[in-house]
């Protein structure tokens, strides 16, 4: 039955070749499992290939911090993992406070995180902020830094995971669309536009399309398809090292080694997932530009050369759906990363592979399961 997919019968079928699907496939292969990845476009075609590339533990919801911290360890030895540096640099990420009130709330957050035993976020005063980000507007009273954070190149990273997975025997079928999943004895049959294939374990890592698979399995989720927008400037001389983000207004801001500056932060365009395209909302990009105009006065004359959006999934609570199916043995979900899943990719793949192979994991993932959406 698995003829058109080549090779022998897989142990695991991963649906979706984004950073999460590729990472899970790689880690399953490292545990000796036979894996088939089915992707309707090509690996990294959507948000995994075109996101802002932030590698951030900073400012995350407590529920996903353990996964993020685990992932960060993998990022710092990413070249050993996938034989490619993925363009990863670690110059820290800084959450800038735009007002005294905001700064007070930051202080409270760091104290709270410390009480849970997390020490990656560090409160900094105006002087240290200025030292890290000299170009920031003088009105900013301080911020939080996460010094081991950084950034990487999304498409390069996703491709590196895919290549390494392939080297370890994972089969990738691109341009193949999943049309249904049926239970068949103790295994699952995945139907596609080119034929059917069977495996005992299925991972739903289909990103913005994952709700359709979940619904097909009788586990509907309130997934929203979103298109976060990004824009990039022409090359300018180097003036900033860490990634800068804001809390009150939407902004993420990063200068690459080549001098271009990436501006994002989660302003949404229109996602047309059935057409595989997005429509930019220039009024919102203008708002985004205005935020940069305020925060980095020296950016005012730089040229915007490109803007785009990637299609991805957001859950109502902005947390991923991660873990075993609520109702089915052998079904696993890994989607809905709500515009901050790139950093989690390496670690989430490792934890998912652990779950699949052993049925359990030591990394706390409670609060991320699909059961939270059960009626």
């Amino acid at each position: 039955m698995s003829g058109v997919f080549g090779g022998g019968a897989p142990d695991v079928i991963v649906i979706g070749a984004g950073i999460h699907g590729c990472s899970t496939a790689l880690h399953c292969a490292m545990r000796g499992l036979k894996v088939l990845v089915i992707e309707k476009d090509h690996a990294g075609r959507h948000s995994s290939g075109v996101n802002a590339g932030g590698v951030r533990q900073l400012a995350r919801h407590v529920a996903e911090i353990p996964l993020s911290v685990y992932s960060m360890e993998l990022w710092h030895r990413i070249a050993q993992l996938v034989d490619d540096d993925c363009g990863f640099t670690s110059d820290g990420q800084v959450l800038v406070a735009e007002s005294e009130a905001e700064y007070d709330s930051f202080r409270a957050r760091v104290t709270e995180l410390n009480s849970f035993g997390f020490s990656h976020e560090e409160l900094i005063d105006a002087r240290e902020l200025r030292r890290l980000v000299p170009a920031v507007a003088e009105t900013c009273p301080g911020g939080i830094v996460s010094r081991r954070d950084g950034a990487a190149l999304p498409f390069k990273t996703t491709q590196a995971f895919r290549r390494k997975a392939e080297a370890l025997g994972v089969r990738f079928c691109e341009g193949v669309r999943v049309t249904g999943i049926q239970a068949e004895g103790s295994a699952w049959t995945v139907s596609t536009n080119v034929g059917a294939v069977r495996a005992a374990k299925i991972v739903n890592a289909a990103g913005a399309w994952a709700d359709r698979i979940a619904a097909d399995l009788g586990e509907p989720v309130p997934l929203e398809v979103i298109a976060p927008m990004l824009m990039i400037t022409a090359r300018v001389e180097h003036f900033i090292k860490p990634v800068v983000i804001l809390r009150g207004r939407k902004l993420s801001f990063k200068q690459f080694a080549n001098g271009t500056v990436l501006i994002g932060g989660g302003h949404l365009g229109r996602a047309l997932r059935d057409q595989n395209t997005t429509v930019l909302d220039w009024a919102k990009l203008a708002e985004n530009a205005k935020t940069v105009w305020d925060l980095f006065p020296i950016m005012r004359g730089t040229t915007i050369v490109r803007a785009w959006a990637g299609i991805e999934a957001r859950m109502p609570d902005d947390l991923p759906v991660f873990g075993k199916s609520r109702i089915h043995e052998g079904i696993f979900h890994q989607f809905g990363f709500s515009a901050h899943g790139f950093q989690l990719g390496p670690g989430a793949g490792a934890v998912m592979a652990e779950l699949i192979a052993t049925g359990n994991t030591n990394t706390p993932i409670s609060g991320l399961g699909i059961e939270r959406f059960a009626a």
Partner: protein
Amino acid sequence: MFRRLPDLGGETVNFTIDGRPATARLGDTVAAALLASGMESCRTTPVSGAPRAPYCMMGVCFECLVTINGIGNRQSCLIPVAEGMAIETQKGARSIASEYSAKGDAA
């Protein structure tokens, strides 16, 4: 590289290139004015620092980028030269500090 046909008439426009005074004919684009003034190149590239000069003269190639009145990366082949214009050649990736001097007003 280029010379002006004789007896064209027309008004003269005064401008500067990197602070040095120069003249053009009213109706010239900035790129044409640079070619007429004997400039060999208008910028160096941000990648290797190689010199570049206008190539297509019709807004396609972006080789003729210069800083005009403090605003960088302008396509000089599309902009008419004007009296008193300050034109600067660009060296590699533009220093961001020079852009700060170009104040705009965001409403």
